[in-house]
């Protein structure tokens, strides 16, 4: 299963990569770990004429703390997120979520930036990224801009990134350990049929849901219903709103009705787990 022919370029800086994107426009695709792009190219769903490999830009791979937030470079692998001591201590939701992605080999190669810009509706990261109210940096010919998580996911496989921009960094806040990610996965691929991330604090909870709708979403009805209540009854009542206002996806793996059901069940479980931590 060979992809169509393409030209390959390997820039050594973000500026060089942006210049290449500007030059080639829609003919070009950015390659990081390749675990979304290469399967699409093998099926010829994607046939870029130019592939810009940013996988060797050393300044894009890091996890570091600065002023109450943790900054993660775009080409940081899922495995690095999963095992990062800093994230495990200070933003455990992201490490916990990364441990659920694909398998050992996929986590060794796939990157957080690549996964986010691909915006597969069943990918894991969007749920915690929304619940953490992460910030995402995009760099293009007009310079750098920061997009909030709730503005980033636009629709199925579509994000706020422009064709001539590169995602460079994701920033997440330091949180308490009261977080959880619970998903029901499609057994062969590990992709989420319904994945729910919860970040709890004394003032309230934030809930991100992936896999259920064409794009990941904040379950604001759950958040408003539970407020600062913490009883089992309040959790049960709030979780019932996990699929309010969305049109769930239906396919051979799960009907729309079943996905909505899984969203409610996993929201209840994620709330219970986060609040017990």
């Amino acid at each position: 299963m060979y992809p169509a022919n393409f030209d390959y370029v390997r820039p050594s800086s973000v500026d060089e990569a942006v210049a290449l994107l500007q030059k080639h426009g829609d003919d070009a695709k950015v390659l990081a770990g390749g675990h979304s792009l290469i399967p699409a190219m093998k099926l010829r769903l994607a046939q870029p004429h130019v592939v810009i490999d940013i996988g060797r830009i050393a300044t894009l791979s890091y996890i570091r703390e600065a002023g109450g937030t943790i900054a993660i470079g775009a080409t940081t692998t899922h495995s690095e997120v999963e095992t990062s001591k800093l994230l495990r201590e200070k933003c455990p939701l992201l490490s916990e979520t990364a441990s659920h992605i694909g398998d050992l080999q996929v986590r060794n190669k796939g990157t957080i930036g690549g996964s986010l810009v691909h915006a597969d509706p069943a990918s894991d990261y969007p749920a915690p990224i929304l619940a953490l109210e992460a910030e995402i940096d995009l760099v293009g010919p007009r310079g750098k801009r920061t997009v909030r998580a709730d503005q980033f996911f636009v629709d199925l496989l579509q994000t706020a990134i422009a064709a001539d921009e590169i995602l460079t960094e994701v920033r997440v806040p330091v949180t308490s350990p009261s977080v959880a990610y619970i998903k029901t996965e499609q057994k062969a691929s590990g992709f989420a049929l319904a994945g729910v991330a919860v970040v709890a604090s004394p003032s309230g909870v934030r809930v991100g849901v992936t896999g259920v709708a064409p794009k990941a979403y904040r379950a604001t009805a759950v958040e408003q219903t539970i407020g600062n209540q913490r009883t089992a009854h309040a959790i049960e009542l709030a979780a019932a709103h996990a699929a309010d206002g969305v049109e769930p996806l239906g396919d051979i793996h799960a009907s729309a009705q079943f996905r909505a059901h899984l969203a409610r069940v996993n929201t209840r479980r994620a709330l219970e787990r986060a609040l017990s931590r």
Partner: protein
Amino acid sequence: MTIPVRLRVNNAPRQHDIEPRVLLVHYLRDVCGLTGTHVGCETGICGACTVLVDGKAVKSCTVFAVQADGSEITTIEGLAANGVMHPVQQGFWECHGLQCGYCTPGMIMAAVHLLTKQKAPTRGQIASGLRGNLCRCTGYTHIIDAVSYAASHATEAAHV
């Protein structure tokens, strides 16, 4: 368009001009002649094509060979040293960890990387560590036995 690629495969330097669309698994099999790495599902699910790139297990059907430029690749052919099998290979031998054998090279390479991360994994940790490798003979129980054997014997060897 061809791209010059220099890398090391099983400790031997290699240098070729290759088309960027050539996948690492086809480079290893068709250019290097190392057919121990198998092509299974071709979609990144089955893990039969697993090799180590700079010590980490990856699915070589989902990596372009040009991405591995400058890397150190280890395939199943590179595991045994001086005619002595690697502990994971020995484990598959002792515990009958294969039936048809098609998934075996990928299983072994993934297990080798798993054991560098977890020295004494539980059966559950082995199962989740190998979730990216499918055995259509469904011989998973013996495969987990084999990796457990390798973990305990590698530990013994390290203590000698």
